[in-house]
């Protein structure tokens, strides 16, 4: 990785200390989390003028805590650490997260972080798509103190998020999952170390009479400038009993919600076609985790 303009290397010992360093160095500084995408950012010309790396590994942001019945994930928690936590391993509600964390190879899982993959704001990443299906929010810290916002509001455009200058992402917050709910994630890729051609995360929740409620359908990987919630699919699922026919109808509907791009890796037409197939399969996977019979 060639990042020759970098001259200084800082090791803040707390999140507050990191905020002070950002205030001091301004646009000359960039935060270093796991480091697995820094090369990607620089090779896309997004690191010009950067002279200071602020390495967050000693800032006390590696933790998975229970919070308000859900989870607070420290920004520097690695994919491997998160995938090894009992809640993520065992709770079908977090199935989408576990699926997405297992996509990259071991070397990336050992290094890449919760905060890094979100703060990169790259639409081809996997884990943020799973986070969106779980109604995640993000917590940040800046000179004015901490604040929270829904993850959906965080993503703005390619590599652009809605944190203000000088703020750092400290936590990803997962709310308490509903009683009968399960989630799943699927990725289409050309090899195991590839960015997604397409990815899908869904959450199914059932009310007392076994009908879908609060469904979430999120797609990423080249279907828009940010990951996209498929609102018409969600509306179609809600209030209905899960069935193959229902999932097929939802899959057919997904075209209306996404605007796939054509690039050197796949055409928009292809992404649109496989979105249907992958959505149907992801819904079936979530239903299987719910332990319900699908007619």
């Amino acid at each position, binding site marked *: *990785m*060639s*990042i*020759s*303009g*970098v*001259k*200084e*290397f800082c*090791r803040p010992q707390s999140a507050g200390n990191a905020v002070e360093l950002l205030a001091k160095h301004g646009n000359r500084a960039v935060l*270093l989390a796991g*480091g*697995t995408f*820094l*090369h*990607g950012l620089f*090779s896309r010309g997004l690191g010009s003028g950067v002279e200071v*790396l602020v*390495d967050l*590994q000693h800032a006390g942001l590696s933790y998975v805590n229970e919070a308000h019945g859900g989870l607070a994930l420290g920004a520097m928690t690695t994919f*491997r650490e998160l995938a090894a936590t009992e809640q993520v391993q065992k709770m079908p509600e977090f199935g989408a997260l576990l699926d997405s964390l297992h996509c*990259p*190879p*071991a*070397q*990336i899982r*050992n*290094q890449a972080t919760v905060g890094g993959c979100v703060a990169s704001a790259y639409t081809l990443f996997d884990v943020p798509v799973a986070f969106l299906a779980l109604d995640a929010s993000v917590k940040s810290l800046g000179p004015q103190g901490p604040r929270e916002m829904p993850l959906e509001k965080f993503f703005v455009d390619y590599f652009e998020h809605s944190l203000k200058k000088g703020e750092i992402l400290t936590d990803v917050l997962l709310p308490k999952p509903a009683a009968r709910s399960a989630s799943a994630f699927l990725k289409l890729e050309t*090899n*195991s*170390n590839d960015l997604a051609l397409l990815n899908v995360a869904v959450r199914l929740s059932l009310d007392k009479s076994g009908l879908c409620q609060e469904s979430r359908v999120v797609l990423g990987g080249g279907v828009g400038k940010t990951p996209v919630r498929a609102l018409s699919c969600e509306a179609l699922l809600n209030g209905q009993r899960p069935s193959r026919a229902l999932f097929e109808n939802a899959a057919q509907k997904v075209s209306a919600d996404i605007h796939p791009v054509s690039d050197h890796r796949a055409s928009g037409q292809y992404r649109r076609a496989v979105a249907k197939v992958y959505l149907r399969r992801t819904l079936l996977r979530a239903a299987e985790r719910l332990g319900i019979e699908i007619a």
Partner: protein
Amino acid sequence: MKHSLILEVNGERHEIAVEASATLLHVLREDLDLIGPKKGCDSGGCGCCTILLDGRAVYSCMVFAMSAQGKKITTIEGLPKDGKLDPLQEAFIQSGAVQCGYCTSGMIMTAKEFLANSPAPGDPEIRRAISGNLCRCTGYHKTIDAIRTAAFSR
């Protein structure tokens, strides 16, 4: 400007001066003459530079040397004990799991972490475990044979 840095590599302490932008791979190869880790893609895509950081396989091209202070770094040069090759190295030799050899040290280091956590892996798990390592000679079968052999001859 160079920064002073202490690295613990294969049990030895090194005090060196590095550029803030230097990758661990660069420092291992160019400053410490440890050329087991190979520079392939230099962007986290091929796995030839895989080393262990506190026992975990990582791409050393994606780790800044400055980030590695205070961690135990293991390269393939650090695997032999008392003049004897590591059982994984032996298994790679016995299985003929080397063609051009460029991916080999990365494969072995990846397998080293994998086997430490997987007592009796099946072939699908072995294949998944080396999914972050490319072999341009496409010699994966013998690599998988070697890792299986090492796993079950413990």
